[in-house]
């Protein structure tokens, strides 16, 4: 019994990725363009094959016509110039609005590629970061959202097949990828530019909410972590082990910036950038030895913790909803 399906929830599963199943107005033009180009190239291929067959096997009179100068002018020059120019105009008119800069009043989310996870900052109208999250992008359904793609280390590429095409995240640049999901739901995404060892394990989930749910989510997510008296032991392990040097939990002393913000880590669908289901057991496994799960990632294995400590700290993190 073998299975290839990754166990993560909401991430891309199986093959092929759903690139021909658009779920919003920024993916639909790419779908039309793909099928249009395929139809066009298939038609041209058919014409060329028929012409070749005629040139080889047709009666002499037909072959003579095929060799005439007029056909070279029409089929060899005029036809490609007209067809390719039309395709260019069509393609540009379909895609030019996919990468416009953010418009006033538009929702803005800054997505920063990191080796090998995604830092996600929700921006207010003035472009200031309201709060930070990781490895999930939450959007309201039926409304365009401008993703401002950046990178701090190497080139990554964000690909949400059902919502738009791939766009690179380049250090020192800010690329705009606009997405819109027409229906609430979860849309898997993946880093599409090789960025080092665990590149294939750098996934992401886009969660589209009904508009009212989105507002509620945003309010909740912006709040600091609620005190967790029931998990005082786990919080003590978190503090003692120095987790706060790399991770922030708003509302506590943990204020590290190197790794993902964990303020509401228990509310996420996945762990380790879209690769594991999120529950206490998976959290314990990740903390205990994430290197066995995602070799090369920047978090060391915490084999110094006892079994009880590992259970306590994972229960604490799971409680951060």
């Amino acid at each position, binding site marked *: *019994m073998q299975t*290839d399906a990754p166990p993560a929830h909401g991430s891309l599963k199986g093959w092929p990725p759903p690139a021909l199943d658009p779920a919003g107005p920024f993916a639909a033009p790419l779908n039309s363009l793909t099928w249009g180009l395929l139809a066009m190239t298939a038609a041209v291929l058919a014409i060329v094959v028929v012409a070749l067959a005629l040139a080889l096997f047709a009666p002499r009179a037909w072959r003579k016509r095929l060799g005439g100068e007029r056909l070279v002018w029409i089929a060899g020059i005029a036809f490609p110039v007209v067809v390719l120019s039309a395709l260019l105009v069509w393609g540009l008119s379909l895609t030019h609005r996919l990468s416009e800069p953010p418009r006033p009043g538009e929702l803005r989310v800054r997505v920063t590629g990191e080796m090998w996870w995604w830092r996600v900052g929700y921006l207010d109208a003035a472009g200031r970061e309201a709060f930070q999250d990781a490895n999930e992008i939450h959007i309201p359904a039926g409304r365009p959202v401008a993703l401002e793609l950046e990178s701090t280390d190497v080139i990554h590429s964000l690909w949400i097949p059902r919502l738009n095409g791939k766009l690179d995240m380049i250090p020192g640049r800010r690329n705009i990828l606009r997405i819109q999901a027409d229906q609430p739901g979860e849309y898997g995404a993946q880093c599409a530019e090789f960025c080092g060892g665990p590149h294939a394990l750098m996934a992401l989930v886009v969660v589209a909410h009904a508009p009212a749910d989105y507002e509620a989510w945003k309010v909740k997510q912006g709040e600091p972590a609620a005190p967790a008296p029931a998990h005082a032991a786990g919080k003590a392990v978190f503090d003692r082990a120095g987790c706060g040097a790399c991770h922030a939990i708003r509302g506590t002393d943990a204020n590290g910036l190197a790794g993902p913000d964990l303020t509401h880590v228990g509310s996420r669908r996945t762990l380790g950038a879209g690769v594991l289901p999120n529950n206490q*057991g998976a959290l314990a496994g990740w903390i205990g*030895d994430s290197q066995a*799960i995602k070799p090369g990632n920047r978090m060391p294995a915490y084999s110094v913790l006892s*079994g009880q400590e590992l259970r306590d700290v994972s229960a604490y993190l799971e409680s951060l909803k």
Partner: protein
Amino acid sequence: MIGLAGATLVACADKPFPSRQLAGANPTEGLRLIEAEGCGACHHIPGVQWPRGAVGGSLDNLQAQAMIAGRFPNRPNVMIAWLRDAPAMAPDTAMPASRLTQDQARDVAAYLYSLDAD
């Protein structure tokens, strides 16, 4: 060489340990649950290509193992209890209590007992 292969075959045919079976449990559903819960985050489990965690022990050939976690007899009802709430049995274990129901834990145990080294 042939003699050695023959001896190995004979060794496979009559196993010196009792087989551990669960009537009516569904090992296929057990594997699905194992993947959905992410047991591979800690354990190397044959049939799960990834992840192959190194926090807990490998579960390969579990049906031939005498003890669970080195301290409880490896019997189906003990295994099911362990899968559901390990800390209740061993307070210092790193393995947290799971969300598995009794029937789900039976399916998971059935899958784990189907793993055979040979």
